[in-house]
């Protein structure tokens, strides 16, 4: 705890703990422990409690409704909520849509959308990827054309996390058909209840439903739903993705996972009945995960400090995304190895999770986390960003 061991920060930690003790009820904790994809009501109830306390979005500037914390407080908050097994908020609203609107949105847009995010009243999804534009985001084909005072949008989007729970979508669409692929894109806000939108669930290998495909057929939105400047969508999207990468490191939640892994090692026994935690190889594995975590955390804190000072993280955030996502996978792979047979047995009903309570959560996370090195710009894309933008290769 060396880094945060000052009287002020100890007092702050105590304040957060007191809040959690009062507001984080058992139902929220159980839902977070058991499920990978939480129902909207659970997330909304917790977000509303945070919003009432003024802690709805610790990473937002105070002018936009943030609590005005420094990076140490922000990190302590993330750590305490992770260790208390508090639900994650609506990541798409809090970490993607919100900061993008704060940076690029009009005063009217900020006034309309930010409070709903802070208080868990409106959920968001992201309309970026398309069936033929994944890693190659710039080649997307969805179009928006201006007709009078409305934009008319046609196309198809995919991998909409939480799309089935969302009220609003931020959408990247082509407004200028000519020129470089990156040049003709614009960013919009689209109400998910509009006619012409149809969602289709995509089930993932963990037997869960969190992502969706979206068909957009002549959807009309007011001209005022354009975010920032027409044709600047690519720049906004790049900044948004860089911010997302800092969050993708998921440092505090990974710390929580490693502690849970250590508990698992004490709970499971080897063939001779000894706790796995007594096995030197198991201890060494835990130690190396911990050391790699400390390296990740150190780097995250550096970038978060930059962010809190008002600077965008830029390409350096790619290092956090790569190492953070790899570590998340290694943690659950380790758990699966230790669980052995218990990680292979599922309840009879589809999507109802493992049979053995010790395996609950680990199996689903292990499978779903194959995605963390793919989403938000695959790690191959991140490596190209580092090579090109930082190394001049």
């Amino acid at each position, binding site marked *: 705890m060396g880094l945060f061991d000052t009287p002020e920060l100890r007092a702050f930690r105590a304040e957060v703990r007191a809040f959690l003790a009062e507001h984080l009820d058992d139902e929220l904790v159980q839902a977070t422990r058991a499920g990978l994809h939480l129902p909207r009501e659970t997330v909304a109830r917790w977000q509303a409690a945070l919003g009432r306390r003024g802690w709805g979005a610790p990473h937002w500037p105070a002018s936009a409704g943030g609590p005005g914390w420094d990076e140490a407080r922000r990190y302590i908050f993330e750590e305490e909520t992770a260790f208390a097994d508090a639900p994650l908020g609506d990541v798409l609203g809090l970490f993607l849509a919100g900061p993008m609107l704060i940076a690029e949105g009009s005063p009217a847009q900020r006034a309309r959308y930010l409070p709903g995010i802070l208080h868990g009243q409106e959920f968001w999804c992201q309309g970026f990827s398309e069936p033929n534009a994944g890693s190659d985001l710039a080649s997307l084909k969805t179009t928006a054309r201006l007709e009078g005072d409305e934009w008319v949008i046609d196309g198809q989007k995919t991998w909409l996390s939480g799309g089935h729970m969302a009220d609003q979508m931020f959408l990247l669409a082509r407004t200028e058909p000519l020129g470089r692929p990156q040049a003709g894109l614009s960013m919009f806000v689209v109400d998910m209840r509009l006619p012409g939108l149809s969602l289709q669930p995509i089930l993932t290998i963990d037997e869960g439903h969190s992502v969706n495909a979206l068909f957009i057929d002549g959807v009309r939105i007011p001209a005022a739903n354009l975010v920032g400047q027409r044709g600047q969508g690519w720049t906004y999207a790049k900044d948004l993705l860089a911010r997302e990468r800092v969050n993708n490191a998921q440092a505090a939640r990974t710390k929580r996972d490693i502690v849970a892994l250590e508990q698992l090692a004490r709970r499971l026994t080897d063939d001779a009945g000894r706790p796995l935690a007594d096995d030197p190889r198991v201890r060494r594995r835990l130690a190396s995960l911990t050391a790699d975590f400390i390296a990740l955390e150190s780097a995250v804190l550096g970038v978060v400090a930059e962010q809190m000072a008002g600077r965008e993280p830029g390409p350096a955030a790619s290092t956090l995304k790569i190492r953070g996502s790899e570590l998340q996978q290694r943690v659950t792979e380790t758990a699966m190895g230790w669980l052995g047979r218990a990680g292979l047995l599922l*309840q009879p009903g589809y999507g109802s999770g493992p049979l053995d309570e010790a395996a609950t959560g680990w199996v689903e996370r292990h499978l779903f986390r194959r995605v963390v090195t793919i989403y938000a710009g695959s790690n191959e894309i991140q490596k190209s960003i580092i090579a090109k933008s930082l190394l001049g290769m």
Partner: protein
Amino acid sequence: MDAESLDLLLGTADRWFAAHGSLASRLARFRQGHREEDGAWAAMADLGWLALTLPETQEGFGASMAQALGLLRAAGRDARPEPLGLHLLLAPWWARQRPQHAGALASAQMRLALADLPVRAGLRLAQGHVQGRADLVMGGLYASHVLLPMPDAEGTLLCVDLSGPGVQALPVRLLDGRHGVRLVFEAAPAEEVGVGAAPLVRDLAAAALVADAVGVLEAGFELTLAYLKQRQQFGRPLSDQQALQHRMAEVFCDLQQLIALAGRLAAELDAQPDALPATLPAAKSFVGRRALRAMGQLIQVSGGIGMTEEYRLGHLYKRLQISATLFGDAEHQLQRIDVRRTLLAA
């Protein structure tokens, strides 16, 4: 079995797998469960597969394990739910213990399952009756008999008739959706099958999983390779990206080594059918250490589609995870490797 007959049989197998619910067609129904096809065992008996590894003196085809590997690889490629590998590996051994059962094995009247029990499982044997439970049973869903390796130093193996008294079967699914059963025994009559047999049948089952893993990794590799060649990003196929080329080349190395290991394992089983195959620990640990990681890489280079339930890759990954874990995971198999004995034996 001569080479021509084997080619004929493998050709039939590919057509039969395609006609009886290819993996792609079965995936659509996995939410309802990945069950063995009705009549599959009878069909496999008619095709002669169940007699494939039985000796000609017992009305079998006398195929070697090396030959049977071809069929198992095909079954693995298609992620078949029926435990054909377990049958082909165990049948000749069982027919040596119980020659009178050879006909029943060939006709699918007798279908063997094998429990993977932790060493400290609570199974107890008293006066010919077994008490306790077996959670993980390979091939348990449609089996007529289950083999239980007992957790004792002697390597006792029991056989329980599943239609007999004192046996309760509870439904369960495996990680990849295959349906199975957990067995609960309450004073179920159990027959002892040769003292010291338990380690051998476990290794035979592990060898079947290695053979299955060959087909599974191969299917995942080919699916991904075709996808990378077809999928366009940045104005060219993904297969033009050097980073992905190198990744695929690495998986190819893993696949070739796994094929070689499985072949060597089969040759050992042919040479000494009643001895623990020396290559098994290396081959089985390879599945957990390298093949599983390779399959994870295939998901990675495929991108989002590799995460979806309707695509074959994720299913193959989960099946491989099962093969890597059952009957001795990588860590367990590595502990069995004695460096000096392994390297200096010749």
